[in-house]
């Protein structure tokens, strides 16, 4: 599902983003990527979204060779990748329903299907009663649930989450993790970048630890090679 082979990425002035990273995530996996600030987690995420190009090495996503994706082909690869950010990135000039429907509209899903899919997602994240609300009227946890619904509405094969609980308290973070686990149980491969070690330990899933741009450990169940 995700394969990185000896991937390195160096920013200008020789600042190393990641160095010689190899990684293999199977279909249906749930993987945490942890590490201190500057360990390369965000660079890894940006490479998987092709916001950045690797300096060397190969990246495959969902069978596509990402290095060679063009402006024309990239949108179709991204349609099968859902993304969740720490700061939710909801559009505040439209309602909860419209935020989720927006993701379907931009990939030109027929209107009758949009309604069906959005309602299904709202029901999954438990926000059916708030479909008319403006994101500003919601709590942080609710906003993140809307963001997850938006990321999942196009039925992606992979869900990439960048610090999804970074702005949330512990209880809300657990709720968000339950939602991600639910998506995973339904077949979506989930990769979560986080520094919330409590959550990582609670979830007891495969955990990759990064430091100074390198993978220093890849543990099958909840093992951590660094302490916060």
């Amino acid at each position, binding site marked *: 599902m995700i394969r990185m082979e000896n991937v390195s990425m160096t920013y200008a002035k020789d600042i190393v983003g990641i160095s010689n990273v190899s990684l293999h995530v199977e279909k249906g996996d749930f993987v945490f990527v942890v590490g201190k600030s500057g360990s390369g987690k965000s660079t890894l995420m940006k490479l998987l979204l092709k*916001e950045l190009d690797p300096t060397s090495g190969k990246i495959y996503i969902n069978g596509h060779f990402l290095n060679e994706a063009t402006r024309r082909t990239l949108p179709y690869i991204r349609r*099968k990748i859902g993304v969740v950010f720490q700061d939710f990135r909801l*559009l505040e000039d439209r309602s909860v329903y419209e935020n989720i429907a927006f*993701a379907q509209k*931009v990939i030109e899903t027929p209107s009758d299907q949009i309604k069906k899919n959005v309602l299904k997602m709202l029901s999954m994240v438990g926000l059916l009663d708030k479909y008319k609300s403006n994101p500003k009227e919601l709590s942080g946890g609710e906003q993140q649930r809307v963001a997850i619904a938006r990321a999942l509405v196009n039925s992606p094969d992979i869900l990439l989450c960048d610090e999804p609980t970074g702005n949330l308290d512990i209880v809300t973070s657990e709720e968000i993790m339950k939602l991600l686990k639910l998506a995973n149980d339904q077949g979506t491969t989930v990769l979560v970048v986080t520094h919330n070690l409590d959550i990582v330990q609670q979830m007891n899933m495969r955990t990759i630890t990064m430091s100074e741009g390198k993978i220093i450990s890849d543990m099958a169940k909840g093992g951590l090679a660094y302490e916060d």
Partner: protein
Amino acid sequence: MKINSAGYQIRQGFKNIHRNKLFSVASIATIAACIFLFGVFYSMVSNFQYMMDNAEKQIAVTVYFDANIPESKLDDIEDKISARSEVDRVEYTSPEQAWSDFQRQYFEGKEYLAEGFKDDNPLANSGSFSVYLNKAAAQEGLVTYIEGLDGVRQVNKNNEVAKNIATGARLVEYVAAAVIIILLAVAVFLITNTIVLGITVRKDEISIMKYVGATDAFVDAPFFVEGIVIGLIGSAIPLVVLFFLYKHIVSYILGHFSVMKGIFDFLPTANVFVVLIPVSLILGLAIGALGSFFALRKHSNV
């Protein structure tokens, strides 16, 4: 792109205009000013050219023939000259006509002076063709051609007038083209800035669109709609103003300065606007599309 999506893009385009009202109005005003000036220049240049064309058509090259040239030879020369593309028309002046014109011009009031010639026409060998041109600049080449024709004795030309008219027409064309190009560049620059502002305001939305897999065409379309609509509105407003101004100014000049009638021959309103309307609308559309293109090329990457 699906029809459903096209409707969405058009709505988004209009929403963008509404969201950036102030800048949209500023862009429309700038394009309107540019197209207005373009229209004024176009009206002036087309009228000037129309007058020049008329003046050019008054320029004649006079062709004299060998003595006792047979009529069939004259017809042959006339046919050859008429066939030239730069020739507007050819008029024949017979020796009798030439002599009669001469008497009228020089012996007026002293007709007795001509009586000495009786039936003897002193201009018997002065039959001529007056060859009128449709482009003054072509005179030199035509004269060379006619001089080479068999049976032609002499060709009189008016170099100075032809040269001045051709230079004048070219100068006006160059100045107008330069001013118009500068104005259009300013318009494109301003509309680019308006679209950039729209992109900046919608940066988050664009980035989300790209993350969920919107194609470039889908992301860019509303901005093209915005640019094109601004361009079209910006060109339609001055066209209406120019239409009424032109109509009234021409009729005012001809009505109040009757002396102008003989000197200036204005193009009818319909003749000016049959070209100005489509050209201005296409220009407005192109300025809008080009402005959007430059703005998107620089700022829509995520």
